[in-house]
């Protein structure tokens, strides 16, 4: 048991002197999530504000046929542009995103009180144009309703007659839940942080040590290889925990800086959030550390280990994508799947909900079993003859 501590202390001491490992664990790993988080929210916020406040420039064909309509649209924020000679081609060539056409029949239909047609020319496969199309459409409908109501009043009828149903939307999402929808990607960053924070140690203590020819003398000490492995894993685990803690703090600070409430969301990353995330993630981080060490035990060189671990890093993306793309209803068994369970639970926390004790214990229990199995397998690899021989 003393040997485990000796190895653990030595690996920590050596790694804290390694500038690359420290920068990875203390700067790169904890900051990558919050930085991307701030960037995403800023982009979203800017877009929302721009959409609401900015005039909407739209080329209009036949504006002269409907001066009143144009006046009404301008009041709602439309900025008419001169029309292209061929609107369909312009949209297809992407020189215009949306074009409004007022046909020659408009004036007559309008005067006779018939529904007067206007055309919106657009390309539904272009997603960046869709918000403009929606805005223009809403303006036209609004104008239509207004003038319709006016016509009824002129004829002495109440405008409410034409409104048989009123739909009132009552969104039951809490402000946090609306926020979490936007940041469904956030749990991935907590996992990624652990991956990056521990990566250089996982490589250095196994593949690196073999490449530098110091593994063979180390294994000649009267210490079982499993103890040496345990000490190395412990030191690597410390680095990933360090990264995670710093990352949680950085997120908490970032959520204070970003004006999320302007989007109608509150984003509360308090102490209990931090404590729950840490507890959920501790066994998962250990599992990740063991798998990283296992992979680099198979690698012949430092470089090879780096490449392999880069691939391993992509695995936690899978549950993130599943959670964003599929509207999964969280079931208890999902909490039993390492990685998926932790990401689900963190999403619940971000929504402002509480992780149930049953969910928490299922996640902790199954991940811990995975840790034991992974350790036993890695220990077997560590005991092979091939591992100790350098070159």
């Amino acid at each position, binding site marked *: 048991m003393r040997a485990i501590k*000796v190895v653990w202390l*030595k690996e920590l001491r050596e790694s804290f002197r390694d500038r690359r490992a420290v920068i990875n664990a203390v700067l790169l790993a904890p900051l990558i999530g919050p930085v991307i988080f701030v960037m995403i929210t800023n982009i979203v916020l800017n877009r929302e504000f721009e959409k609401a406040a900015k005039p909407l420039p739209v080329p209009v064909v036949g504006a002269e046929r409907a001066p009143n309509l144009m006046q009404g649209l301008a009041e709602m924020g439309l900025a008419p542009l001169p029309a292209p000679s061929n609107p369909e081609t312009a949209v297809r060539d992407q020189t215009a995103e949306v074009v409004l056409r007022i046909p020659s029949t408009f004036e007559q239909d309008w005067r006779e009180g018939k529904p007067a047609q206007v055309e919106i020319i657009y390309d539904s496969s272009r997603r960046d144009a869709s918000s403009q199309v929606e805005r223009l459409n809403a303006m036209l409908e609004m104008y239509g309703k207004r003038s319709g109501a006016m016509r009824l009043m002129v004829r002495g009828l109440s405008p409410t007659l034409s409104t048989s149903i009123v739909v009132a939307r009552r969104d039951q999402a809490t402000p946090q839940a609306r926020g979490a929808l936007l940041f469904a990607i956030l749990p991935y960053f907590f996992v990624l942080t652990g991956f990056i924070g521990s990566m250089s140690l996982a490589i250095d203590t196994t593949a690196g040590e073999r490449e*530098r020819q110091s*593994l*063979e003398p180390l294994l*000649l000490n*009267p210490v079982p290889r499993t103890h040496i492995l345990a000490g190395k894993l412990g030191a690597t685990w410390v680095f990933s925990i360090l990264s995670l803690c710093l990352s949680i703090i950085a997120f908490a600070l970032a959520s204070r800086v970003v004006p999320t409430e302007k989007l109608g969301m509150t984003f509360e990353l308090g102490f209990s959030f931090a404590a729950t995330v840490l507890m959920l993630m501790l066994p998962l981080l250990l599992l990740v550390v063991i798998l990283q060490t296992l992979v680099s035990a198979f690698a012949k060189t430092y470089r090879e280990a780096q490449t392999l671990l880069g691939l391993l890093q992509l695995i936690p993306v899978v549950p993130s994508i599943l959670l964003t793309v599929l509207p999964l209803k969280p079931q208890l068994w999902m909490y039993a799947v390492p990685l998926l369970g932790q990401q689900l639970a963190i999403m619940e926390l971000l929504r402002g909900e509480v992780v149930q004790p049953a969910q928490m214990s299922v996640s902790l229990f199954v991940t811990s079993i995975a840790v034991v199995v992974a350790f036993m397998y890695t220990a077997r690899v560590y005991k092979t*003859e091939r591992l100790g*021989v*350098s070159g």
Partner: protein
Amino acid sequence: MIEVMDLAKRFGAIAAVDGVSFIARDGEVTGLLGPNGAGKTTTLRILYTLMRADRGRVLVDGIDAAENELDVRRCLGVLPDARGLYKRLTARENIEYFARLQGLSEEAVRQRTNALIDVLGMRAIADRRVEGFSQGERVKTALARALVHDPKNLILDEPGNGLDVMAMRALRELLRSLRGEGRCVLFSSHIMQEVAALCDRIVIIARGHVVAQGTPDELRERANEASLEEAFVKLIGSSEGLAA
């Protein structure tokens, strides 16, 4: 004392070691001499429990290496072919790390480390990081690491590799004094002069077999040659791979 009986080890189709037997006695320096690729390193790796033999037995001070590898490691000091140090640790930290892994008490760790730093003349470099050490300084640190638990038996794989004349002289002095203390010293080399200058007994290995063993005089006599070098060439069957 190290006793080796009928050792064999294959890597795939290649028999790296095939029936090697010899005894390295206490108070003697035993040299394992052979051309490159003769099976010296593999033999030593089996002795110091890094590898397992397919056949045969190794006894170190009477303890079976295959059955009780931890106890064998406790009475062995090893300077392996791979002698990497931790470059971000100082020489002293490197030595102390192994002392603790050998199970020494904290007081013994300090005492033994200081004693070895003195004996090996490392005082000026002891608290410098190993990064940037010369080859000779590295070997000294690796030697101190191997000797820190005061082992009765010492195994060195090609200890002369990369050493300049002065460092080699110092190493020879050290090995002689270890022999004087009654320890069993076993080292391998492909350089005939190195072995001749130091060894009480020589074991000549070629193609995984022991082709001859004995004192330098016995070997000269057996080969009927006046010079040791001629005797080696004759015993091995070719001069290939013997060059320094």
